[in-house]
């Protein structure tokens, strides 16, 4: 039996403004988020991911379409009656309340008895290691600590779904990494469905069970980080997540032909005709002997990155491609500018894009 969906949106559409000034923020987005999963909405700013989050939280009503929680239609349920809590990008901690009162706010509004509030607040605070700060005001805390309070505040009422709106974007790199693993740990321990919004593809890849990639109000692809990275459906997804080489190709019956006469195997169900193929730089192999390789290229530039080097080359046929060259594994330094080299693509690494 399939796991029940925690959140489902059905052809949700959100239009701001009216007439000629109407802006479509969300264009018929249907998505099913499973119970207990860490789901990430990934996309550049203005892609509609925050709008989708606000629809799920209930801060906005969709222009059309439906929002379901555990199979129940909650489209018209106000935010205060949805068992869904949000960690805001700006944290939105109540400045006039202490940390303890902030964390207890949700339970207090729900009308829970003081004893229960006390226990749950203590538990939430110890979960984010802030027990000692309970009597401080938010302004007396560092950015990272405020972040944790915001998290504890959203978790204390035990929501069914936790929404996180780019919660880590204001933190510095080191703290961000720490919070990433902490969030992952909490999600694992609590088993609550997390819906995480970010524009950071690395964050999405490392934390999520599944990712939904969005652009211009549309949902382009849903899949596990591995699927999204290895099998992007179109150029936008391939380009947005990781680095990719794009090469024009003719695709027929499981074979892609580039530069006129170089054929390579692709998935048999790939779209037919004139398309773009995508190859990740780490799947481009460089051979010192051009004669032994299916393709030839001339190195135009090499950039050293420590663990590896990025070798920029002009492939025969005139397309520029980048290879990630691992000196240790290859047993030598990256080829220098002007060298003629052989190039091959790792088997199964060539992906035909739908444009």
């Amino acid at each position: 039996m399939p796991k029940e969906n925690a959140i489902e949106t059905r052809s949700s559409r959100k239009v701001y403004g009216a007439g000629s000034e109407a802006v479509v923020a969300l264009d018929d987005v249907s998505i099913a988020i499973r119970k207990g999963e860490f789901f990430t909405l990934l996309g550049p700013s203005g892609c509609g991911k925050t709008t989708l989050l606000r629809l799920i939280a209930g801060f906005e009503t969709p222009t059309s379409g439906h929002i379901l929680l555990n199979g129940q239609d909650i489209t018209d349920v106000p935010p205060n009656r949805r068992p869904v809590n949000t960690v805001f990008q700006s944290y939105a901690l109540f400045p006039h309340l202490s940390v303890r009162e902030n964390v207890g706010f949700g339970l207090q509004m729900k009308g829970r008895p003081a004893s229960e509030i006390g226990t749950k607040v203590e538990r939430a605070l110890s979960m984010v290691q802030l027990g000692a700060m309970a009597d401080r005001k938010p302004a007396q805390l560092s950015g990272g600590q405020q972040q944790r309070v915001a998290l504890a505040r959203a978790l204390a009422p035990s929501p069914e779904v936790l929404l996180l709106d780019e919660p880590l974007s204001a933190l510095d790199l080191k703290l961000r990494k720490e919070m990433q693993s902490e969030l992952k740990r909490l999600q694992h321990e609590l088993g609550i469905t997390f819906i995480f919004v970010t524009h950071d593809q690395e964050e999405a890849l490392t934390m999520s069970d599944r990712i939904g990639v969005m652009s211009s109000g549309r949902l382009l692809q849903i899949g596990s980080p591995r699927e999204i990275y290895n099998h992007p459906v179109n150029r936008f997804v391939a380009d947005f997540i990781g680095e990719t080489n794009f090469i024009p190709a003719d695709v027929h019956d499981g074979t892609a032909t580039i530069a006129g006469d170089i054929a390579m195997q692709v998935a048999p169900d790939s779209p037919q005709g004139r398309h773009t193929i995508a190859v990740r730089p780490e799947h481009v192999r460089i051979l010192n002997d051009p004669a032994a390789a299916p393709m030839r290229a001339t190195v135009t530039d090499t950039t050293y990155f420590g663990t590896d080097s990025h070798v920029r080359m002009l492939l025969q046929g005139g397309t520029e491609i980048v290879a990630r060259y691992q000196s240790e594994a290859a047993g030598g330094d990256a080829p220098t500018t002007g060298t003629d080299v052989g190039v091959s693509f790792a088997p199964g690494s060539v992906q035909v894009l739908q444009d």
Partner: protein
Amino acid sequence: MARREFSASRIPGFPTVAILVFVALYMPILMLVIYSFNAGDSIAIWEGFSFKWYPVAWNNEQVREVTFRSLTVATMASVIATTVATMAALGTTRRRRTGGQTFIYLMINQPLMVPEIVTAVALLIFFASIKVATGYQGLGYLIAAHSAFCIPFAYLPIRARLEGMDRTLEVAASDLYATPWQAFRHVTLPLLMPGIAAGLMLAFVTSLDDVVITLFVKSAGQDTLPTYMLAQIRRSVSAEVNAISTLLLLLTVILLTAFFLLTRKRD
């Protein structure tokens, strides 16, 4: 020579002008305060230091009566004006923008722009007809009139506070199961309190020293402190008035200092 940014302090004569302006502003007030401690009863000839005018003012039955009336009117009017202003500020900042906002601001701030004497005459005529119709002669007219012209003074700091408030906080409250009323009661209102207190003080001070409208609206025997003082000074200049003025000044300074402390941006 390095290019420097514009600074008013380098304009020739700037210090002189600045000092002259401050002297013109504060010299008369300083004189008033000094002469309230004059031992003689002249307001022009210094005859030595004394506190005597303060007990004289305090023991004057009439002064006590008008002071009490002034405080009553100011308290009632500032509370009413602040309540109305708070609702107006919420109405103008916590709703969908539909245009015409500037017009609404102008309407609310009308008492700041319409000449006071016009308002005074209008109220005189308006209240006269009510007096005839109802026969009521009480303090209500003064309180109503003061409430009306105090509204913008209370409204401005409250609106500023509401506009500066992070709306996400109210959204966060609703996310955390607060009903709209609870969100207002537990988040908006406490955060608005400094603005409301500031508005209240400003309205109180404004009501306390009003002369023009009070003169037109008051019934017989309803002198407030300022109108009483005006009447006293017309008759004979008394050093007693200096003492009362000094006390009024002190009260105003205290309230305005509190106002600035409350509206000062924190952090």
